[in-house]
């Protein structure tokens, strides 16, 4: 019975292929756009999540602030107001997990005939904890290496590839600005950071070695940057407060005067970045859904035309015994078939387009079953919703009026 109505619907669609196809096209484009947009959005969300977890969690960055010298103020991180002792004091605060003073820069590194300019991070072993960065071969340097300023280095994957090629860097000696360094460990790959830079293009060396032998700081014992990790995200506001109080006290800043350091909550920044990509991907989906809506209205439009055009046929069907629900089902099925087939084609095209975007631009796209299910559900809904009114209009026709229709 119902199956027969499905057959009748199918037959009617076959009778006007071009129109059926054009109606379907609205659905194809709508669903294709939704799939493409959602895949790109989910890819972006995934990428952000990945770089956030690569960055490390519950992080503060302390930058030394401006020092006024004769009216000329240096920018943030410009001065050297932060002492290594400050970092040690912060480590004693409750809620603080790891503290790593950092002195970084970039330098030319030479190994045999190869040379490579890379980022050099001078820091303490707790830096690796703060950034949840692991050493996959060899060992991290220790606090005693920092105390005695030994010339050891941890090497990132990109730097290792460029300097050593297929060779195993472990135990090899390379030169940073003429000074020889022994590679004691190889870092796990971290990929792109939040700022888009390749985090694996780096060497990590003891802080003291960086200050005294590589960059030659005028202020040994001071740093521009300290990374602070808290135990949990919940304690971050409390730690921010106690850390600020501690530093103001240590730096003897009187009431009413500005801090001589900057404190940034990296986790909050990352969270807001994640939130904005989430909103962006929702927005993309919403915009694409509009085209789905337009496709649905197209179906309704064509179905209304079709009902008017086929009034006489409806009259004939009623004259030979079609009930209201037979006519309703026939037209409803027609709308549903159009939207469901349109949806399947749109799904296919959307997936192809998403893969094309991935291979052409290198953007990560994620095609999830959820996306497909959502698109399919929406298409079926659109078919029923926009098909119902025309179908009901057809079913409610008066048999004799419909038969008389020319």
């Amino acid at each position, binding site marked *: 019975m119902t199956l027969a109505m499905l057959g009748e619907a199918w*037959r009617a669609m076959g009778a006007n292929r071009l129109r059926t196809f054009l109606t379907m096209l609205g659905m194809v484009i709508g669903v294709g756009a939704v799939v493409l947009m959602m895949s790109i959005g989910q890819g972006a969300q995934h990428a952000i999540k990945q770089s956030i977890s690569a960055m490390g969690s519950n992080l503060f960055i302390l930058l030394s602030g401006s020092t006024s010298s004769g009216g000329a103020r240096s920018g943030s991180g410009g001065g050297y107001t932060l002492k290594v002792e400050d970092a040690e004091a912060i480590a004693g605060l409750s809620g603080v997990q790891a503290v790593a003073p950092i002195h970084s820069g970039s330098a030319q590194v030479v190994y045999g005939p190869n040379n490579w300019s890379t980022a050099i991070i001078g820091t303490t072993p707790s830096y690796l904890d703060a950034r949840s960065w692991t050493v996959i071969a060899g060992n991290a340097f220790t606090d005693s290496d920092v105390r005695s300023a030994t010339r050891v280095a941890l090497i990132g994957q990109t730097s290792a590839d460029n300097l050593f090629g297929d060779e195993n860097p472990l135990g090899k000696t390379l030169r940073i600005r003429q000074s020889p360094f022994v590679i004691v460990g190889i870092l796990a790959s971290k990929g792109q950071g939040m700022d888009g830079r390749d985090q694996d293009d780096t060497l990590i060396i003891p802080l003291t070695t960086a200050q005294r032998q590589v960059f030659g700081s005028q202020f040994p014992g001071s740093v521009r940057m300290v990374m602070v990790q808290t135990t949990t995200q919940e304690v971050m506001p409390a730690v921010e407060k106690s850390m600020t109080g501690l530093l103001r006290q240590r730096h003897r800043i009187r009431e009413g005067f500005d801090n001589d350091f900057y404190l940034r909550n990296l986790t909050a920044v990352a969270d807001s970045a994640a939130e904005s990509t989430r909103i962006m991907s929702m927005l993309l989906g919403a915009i694409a859904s509009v085209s789905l809506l337009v496709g649905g209205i197209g179906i309704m439009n064509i179905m209304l035309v079709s009902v008017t055009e086929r009034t006489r046929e409806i009259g004939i069907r009623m004259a*030979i015994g079609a*009930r209201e629900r037979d006519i309703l089902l026939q037209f409803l099925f027609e709308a549903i078939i159009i939207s469901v087939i349109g949806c399947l084609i749109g799904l296919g095209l959307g997936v192809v387009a998403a893969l094309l975007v991935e291979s052409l631009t290198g953007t990560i796209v994620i095609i999830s079953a959820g996306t497909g299910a959502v698109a399919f559900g929406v298409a079926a809904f659109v078919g029923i919703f926009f098909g119902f009114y025309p179908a009901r209009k057809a079913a409610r026709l008066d048999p004799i009026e419909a038969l008389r229709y020319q």
Partner: protein
Amino acid sequence: MVDAVIRIEHLYKSYATSAGEFPVLKDVNLTIASGDFVAIMGPSGSGKSTFMNILGCLDKPSGGTYRLDGRNVGELARDELAKLRNRTIGFVFQGFNLLPRMSLQDNVALPLIYCGIERETRRERARELLARVGLERYVDAMPNKISGGQQQRVAIARALVNHPSLILADEPTGNLDSHTGEEIMALFESLNREGITIVLVTHEADIAQHAQRQVHFLDGRIVRDHPTLQVGACV
């Protein structure tokens, strides 16, 4: 009369027009017995088609009662009327009214879809009836590929497919030449011999001769109702 298929009492029908109510049928009374063959005649505009549409449950009267097989049609719901059109009545139109993009077989089988008969049975039954009207060779042809007379045979096959007890035909030969018209009438006669009640509208006295009874309409009333006189007899 116990076995009256159609019993019509004080039937009125008027159309609402811009100039007010326009009466078309005025107090029509008619009883048709099972197995009868009735020709309805009358001048153009006398209300014959209007009457036939009411008989066929396609239209509703403005007043009076219509009993079909003893059931008061005026009290039936839309779906029950559809069921009557599907199983009890076979309607044959002047303009054939076949569905254009469907093979003859599918056209004939169409009424069976609406009573839930499965596909193979439908097709079998359609082929049987096409054979009955002499069109077994055209099972898969499209309606526009055959002549008017053949199309009317298909329409009759479609009207018969669900074993109706009543065939209603509004000027079934109106679009056909007299020879083809005679063939169609022969078909109706043989159906009538099998016990099917037939009511048909015609303008032509020759066609009406095939019926057993003639009912004349004039200006929305039945003015004459008599058995068909034998050809050659004088009035």
